[in-house]
């Protein structure tokens, strides 16, 4: 890991958000260095997805700031944050349900293609070269995710596990430096989860990615994350290596009644 002397890729300082009078998350700090794989865990309703929504611009934080590659990104709309290099998946899969598998990934390429509106309307050469490039790249991606044979299938017809994989493929197509995965293993059986772990490790190498993931499956989190942050009632209660987290008294307290390692579907 190359951490020392380098600026962190993502720096979150004292982040907080209020809905009405309710503080959903407060004083949240997080630092991610390039190349790391970080886990964000916590009991249901702890505010994990809210953190993701703030990082990606879906919600605007009411306090604190978010620096990505040293630049402020809080307050930007989601599409601009994606263009800076953060893309994500969703807890409740949000694929373009009626579109083909190929089209889902091609839409991920949207920002990378540069051809203008007029080139598409008048079918100028730029349109064709961009379309061909997007298609070829998308097919390459589908090969990596072992979905190529299904490229013409409608996304909503895929089995659940494949939809999750497709969503990751789509997020990757947008060319992120930082990938946020919101419960990627939710609803998967143990075999699929194991495959997913391999896949995450593989794409991390292949695309030189930094990954932040929310997960309920402790086996997955403990197995692949280098550092883990624990959130409870909107507050950061612990941070450290999987070993440290496993034995942290506050974490055990937060999960009291909820057995550590339990698999939430």
């Amino acid at each position: 890991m190359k951490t020392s002397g380098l600026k962190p890729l993502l720096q979150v300082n004292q982040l907080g958000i209020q809905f009405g009078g309710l503080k959903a998350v407060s004083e949240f700090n997080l630092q991610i260095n390039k190349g790391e794989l970080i886990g964000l865990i916590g009991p249901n309703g702890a505010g994990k997805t809210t953190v993701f929504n703030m990082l990606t611009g879906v919600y605007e934080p009411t306090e604190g700031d978010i620096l990505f590659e040293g630049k402020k990104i809080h307050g930007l709309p989601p599409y601009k944050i994606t263009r800076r290099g953060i893309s994500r998946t969703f807890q409740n899969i949000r694929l373009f349900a009626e579109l083909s598998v190929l089209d889902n990934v091609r839409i991920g390429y949207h920002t990378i293609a540069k051809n203008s509106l007029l080139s598409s309307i008048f079918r100028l050469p730029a349109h064709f070269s961009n379309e061909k490039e997007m298609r070829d790249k998308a097919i390459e991606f589908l090969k990596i995710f072992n979905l190529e044979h299904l490229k013409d299938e409608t996304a909503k017809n895929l089995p659940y596990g494949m939809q999750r994989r497709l969503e990751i493929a789509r997020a990757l197509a947008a060319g992120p430096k930082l990938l946020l995965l919101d419960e990627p293993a939710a609803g998967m059986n143990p075999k699929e989860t194991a495959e997913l772990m391999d896949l995450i490790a593989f794409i991390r190498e292949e695309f030189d990615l930094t990954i932040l993931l929310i997960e309920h499956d402790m086996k997955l989190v403990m197995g692949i994350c280098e550092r883990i942050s624990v959130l409870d009632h909107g507050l950061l209660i612990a941070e450290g290596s999987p070993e440290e987290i496993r034995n942290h008294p506050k974490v055990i307290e937060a999960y009291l009644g909820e057995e550590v390692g339990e698999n939430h579907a």
Partner: protein
Amino acid sequence: MEWIQQLVNGISLGSIYALIALGYTMVYGIIKLLNFAHGEVFMIGAFTGFYGITFLNLSFIPALILAMVVCSILGMLIERVAYRRLRRSTRIAALITAIGVSLFIQYVMIYFRGATPEAYPDIVPRQNIEFLGIKFNSQALFILLITIILMILLQYIVHRTKMGKAMRAVSLDMDAARLMGINVDNTISATFAIGSALAGAAGVIFGMYYTSIDPLMGLLPGIKAFVAAVLGGIGIIPGAMVGGFILGIVETGVSALGYSNWRDAAAFIILILILIFRPSGIFGKNTREKV
């Protein structure tokens, strides 16, 4: 004191919008449908009242009740025949169906009696009552009285009766209400019946006040009543009342200032301003989509 008279006129017009808006908002609250045919129920109410008065020699109140009964039956019929099948359908299919029902009622009416307007008989005396040096139109006061009675009745039904409780439950969560043993179909029917009865009453009141009715009369007041419903916060009953009154007062004000040609535009400008700045309406709560 001219402006007080105008205010009273505005409130009378607003009562009509409010009565129509109530039906709109109740139906939208319970099945999330923009019932474009609601304006036509209002039109049928006006004609029922007219025929009741001219052919059955009814006085105003019996004619009003007759119109309300006929309209509530019509409303239930529309729901049963057209909308019930669409409950699991897409919004746009429902919207187009509602437009279809609206056109159907208009042109069936034209087919049977032609498009010519009908002059409403002067059944409630139109005289000016002086009070504290201000002249009030007796009809305007009468309209206001009837509207207030109907609204109190509605509040009673919605908040004090079992049916009202069922209506509120279904509008919050249809499936949960069904699991709690509420007969959802009957509750929706009742909502249409009550909403349509109010539109029917508005029809008779409109006829009496503006003296001319025709088969296409429902279109514009229908849409404006929807504006009133949005203004107050769609799905919220007091919101529809307040929205109706505000709209009526603003329209009368615009006319009184000499811009009567722009009266109809005023309603839509209000609509657009409210949608842009406070889409949930005066009484509505802002909701955000869960991600």
